[in-house]
């Protein structure tokens, strides 16, 4: 589909020029002209006061029979036989999509000795599980997992696949979408059904979190998306639930795998804590020197929380990248998020806005972080945090 301006109707008001998020509209001879940068998002259609902009439907040569594809799948990522939380979050969200579509929800488990996870996957909402096991899956590899997921798609034809936007999920998703030849929407933060078409409406931040885009995959199947961890909640497990387990034999040969994992270097548990933590204390540039980060660590410690950092702090080398919260770092969704000396640039907010409660401490009363904070203190973090630590210790000692 392409978006076109009808020059006969265009009154040259330039409303569309400003509305285009991609800067794809220019004025030529007093009329709006849509250039190559257009992504057919349609933002201009809505703002045109005279209805001079419209969508042209283009014929696509797609040979897929869409009606053959049924059901919602959740790829349940596991590491060493442990499922990542995001898989359970997606089962909860996938359940809603499947119910709205009147179709079944299936979990996809690929790994070595992962059948003990099936009970939990049913308990979290799946009607069915596709289970593929073998030594070749003991560690994630692009090749083995792509071959297997692609094979499952070709055999069982799901309408929708949800995957966690983890490092491995973002490695596997595009490789599979490329092989199958379908659309993949990355890093979604909201899912729904588009009422007009019945398609999955994938919503995600773009332009560094400045805008949100809702994306559809109309003509290709499966409709695929990766979803950020910690955006959706897990449902309470219901262990009375059971379902059908479809065991599928692996078609992977060892020679298919072109990468070899030589070593895993674990960087403590701090970063893992960040994504699972209920309380996160993050520090930013307001700390003014790297040594001050000890205060953040101490506050996190008395609260039993994990430590995060802003991009500025990571760029300055005070903390490794694993601690970074934000659009290009980690997405977190704790119960409580402390932003200490963090201004709250939109790129940071994109990584923590799904936190239940945000507490901001900043010297600058105009800092954007206060706009999204539930509680705020205007003050120097170097004074406020020690006082906070003190007060919390007092309350804890009394309680």
């Amino acid at each position: 589909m392409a978006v076109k301006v009808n020059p006969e109707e265009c009154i040259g008001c330039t409303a569309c020029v400003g509305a285009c998020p991609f800067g794809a509209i220019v004025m030529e001879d007093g009329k709006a002209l849509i250039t190559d940068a257009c992504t057919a998002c349609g933002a201009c259609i809505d703002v045109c006061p005279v209805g001079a902009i419209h969508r042209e439907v283009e014929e696509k040569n797609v040979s897929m029979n869409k009606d053959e594809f049924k059901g919602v799948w959740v790829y349940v990522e596991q590491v060493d036989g442990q499922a990542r939380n995001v898989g359970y979050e997606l089962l909860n969200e996938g359940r809603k999509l499947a119910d709205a579509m009147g179709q079944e929800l299936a979990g996809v488990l690929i790994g070595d000795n992962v059948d003990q996870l099936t009970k939990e996957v049913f308990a979290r909402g799946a009607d069915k599980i596709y289970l593929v096991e073998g030594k070749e899956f003991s560690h994630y590899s692009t090749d083995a997992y792509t071959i297997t997921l692609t094979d499952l798609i070709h055999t069982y034809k799901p309408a929708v696949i949800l995957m966690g936007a983890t490092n491995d999920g973002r490695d596997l998703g595009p490789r599979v979408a490329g092989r199958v030849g379908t659309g993949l929407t990355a890093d979604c933060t909201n899912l729904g059904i588009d009422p007009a078409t019945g398609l999955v409406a994938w919503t995600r931040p773009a332009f560094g979190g400045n805008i949100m885009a809702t994306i559809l995959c109309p003509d290709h199947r499966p409709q695929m998306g990766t979803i950020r961890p910690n955006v959706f909640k897990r449902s309470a497990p219901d262990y009375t639930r059971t379902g059908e387990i479809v065991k599928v034999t692996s078609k992977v040969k060892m020679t298919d795998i072109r990468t070899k994992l030589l070593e895993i270097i674990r960087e403590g548990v701090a970063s893992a804590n960040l994504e699972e933590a209920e309380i996160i204390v993050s520090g930013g540039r307001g700390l003014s020197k790297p040594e001050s980060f000890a205060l953040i660590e101490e506050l996190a410690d008395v609260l039993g929380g994990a430590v995060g950092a802003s991009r500025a702090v990571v760029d300055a080398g005070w903390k490794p990248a694993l601690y970074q919260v934000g659009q290009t770092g980690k997405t977190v969704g704790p119960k409580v998020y402390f932003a200490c000396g963090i201004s709250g640039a939109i790129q940071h907010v994109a990584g923590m806005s799904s936190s239940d409660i945000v507490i901001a401490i900043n010297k600058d009363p105009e800092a954007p972080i206060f706009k999204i904070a539930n509680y705020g203190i205007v003050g120097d973090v170097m004074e406020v945090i020690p006082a906070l630590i003190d007060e919390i210790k007092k309350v804890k000692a009394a309680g």
Partner: protein
Amino acid sequence: MDIVVCVKQVPDTTEVRIDPETNTLIRQGVPSIVNPFDKNAVEAALQLREKYGGKVTILSMGPLQSKEALKECLAMGADEAILLSDRAFGGSDTLATSHALAAGLRKMGKVDIILCGKQAIDGDTAQVGPEIAEHLGITQVTYVSKINTVDEQVIRVEREHEEGYEVIEAQMPVLLTVVKSINEPRYPTVKGTMKANRKEIPVWTVDDVEVDRDALGLKGSPTQVRRIFTPERRVQGEMMQADTAREAATLLVKRLVEIKII
């Protein structure tokens, strides 16, 4: 060693602001830059060339103004740059973009290593790299934070992971996407910039590459943007009104006890 770096010219999204009255992006005055992660990829390529010899070519797809981004990469020290530019590529989503870039790469002939940034800061999808690798049928390693050794058969790299790092050996040829911590991109020198200004940047149109036209542009894009909107702002909360840091801290802790956080 033949190395190709795929780069994208992007608006500097850290400079993009929302107009509160019209709720639209203010793009005026927002500079176009080389996607920052792609600069890390260029730097990684230059370091590989310094160590193992060979040639570094930059490939981009975009409108003609993307030549500016390619010039900057040439000024950093790349040997050649090629731009894929054609109306037929316009409106491409990640899959269509990857088909165009893969076609460009095929035309280049023998390539040992393809480097990409982990994602572009305007779309943040991280998809084009793996999709190129898929179309070319080569090995991929994403989130690479260090390149250890390279020989004709294999490359050893470190890959960033949620829990730390993986050391991975991958068969060549390979496509790597790199993270920021891999290096500090060099600044172009004056000499480099002058040299870059003199270099021709060939523009390849759709007729110059072998590609299925149905796989390109809006026609070849399975995903479609349905709606663009500005994110909802959270409701503003309560400010702790106090004269001293101590008083403010006491007030906050009281609130945290009330809502059972402590």
